[in-house]
């Protein structure tokens, strides 16, 4: 049962990830990316990370992808096929490098055969409570630094987007 779900969602995310890089239309690529991120969120759910699955949908589908779509629409890129993939020399090298990397990683990790379901997880595994305990305990300083990072990002984005004052 879980295996069927796993194959479905991983197939979905890999297929749509391929679409992301091979669609010519930027907007279609963005929509394919939404599907990829959704598939990954479902995989998170299968791994009992429910909080992160919801987080993934909220952050990516709700915020990141909307930003992407906004930018694409503002530039009005989607409709004309602006940038075709020319399989130039560099492109071929890129594909070869990527495929080699994939083969290397896959053959390397095929050997990891620890069964996932053998561990008896507590009731609290993957809940907001257990993530929160770590975030506000052991990882408090990185967590606070994240908020500074986000603040800096906000200020940076506003500075970039503001009209130059003359």
């Amino acid at each position: 049962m879980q295996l069927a779900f796993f194959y479905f969602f991983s197939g979905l995310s890999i297929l749509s990830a391929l679409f992301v890089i091979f669609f010519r239309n930027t907007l279609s690529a963005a929509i394919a990316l939404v599907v990829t991120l959704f598939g990954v969120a479902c995989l998170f759910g299968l791994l009992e990370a429910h909080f992160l699955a919801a987080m993934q949908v909220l952050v990516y589908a709700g915020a990141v992808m909307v930003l992407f779509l906004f930018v694409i629409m503002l530039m009005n890129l989607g409709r004309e096929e602006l940038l075709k993939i020319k399989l130039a020399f560099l492109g071929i090298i890129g594909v070869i490098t990527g495929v080699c990397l994939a083969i290397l990683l896959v053959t390397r990790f095929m050997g990891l055969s620890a069964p996932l379901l053998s561990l008896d997880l507590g009731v609290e595994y993957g809940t907001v409570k257990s993530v929160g305990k770590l975030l506000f305990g052991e990882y408090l300083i990185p967590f606070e630094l994240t908020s500074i990072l986000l603040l800096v990002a906000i200020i940076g984005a506003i500075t970039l987007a503001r009209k130059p004052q003359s």
Partner: protein
Amino acid sequence: MILLSHYIVVSAILFSIGVIGVLCRRNALVIFMSVEIMLNAANLAFIAFAREHGGMEGQTIAFFVMALAAAEVAVGLGIIMAVFKKQGTIDLAKINFLKG
């Protein structure tokens, strides 16, 4: 029976797809999306390992990665918009001025 390797292999494939996207495409936005795919692949690996060990640390790190991705997108898209306003294109092969 799902093994840890299943998830790690999916993560590796997604990561490689992201690498191919970054190397092949010249559209700045698509490159950005490929980076997002790579970050997600890393997150998937973190969470799969966390599941294997029964600990929550991997999920916490994945949480930080998401915050980082959000910050990156905000600034990165701002830069792309600024470049587009200046140069009228986001084809990375055509953006070759260092002067703003």
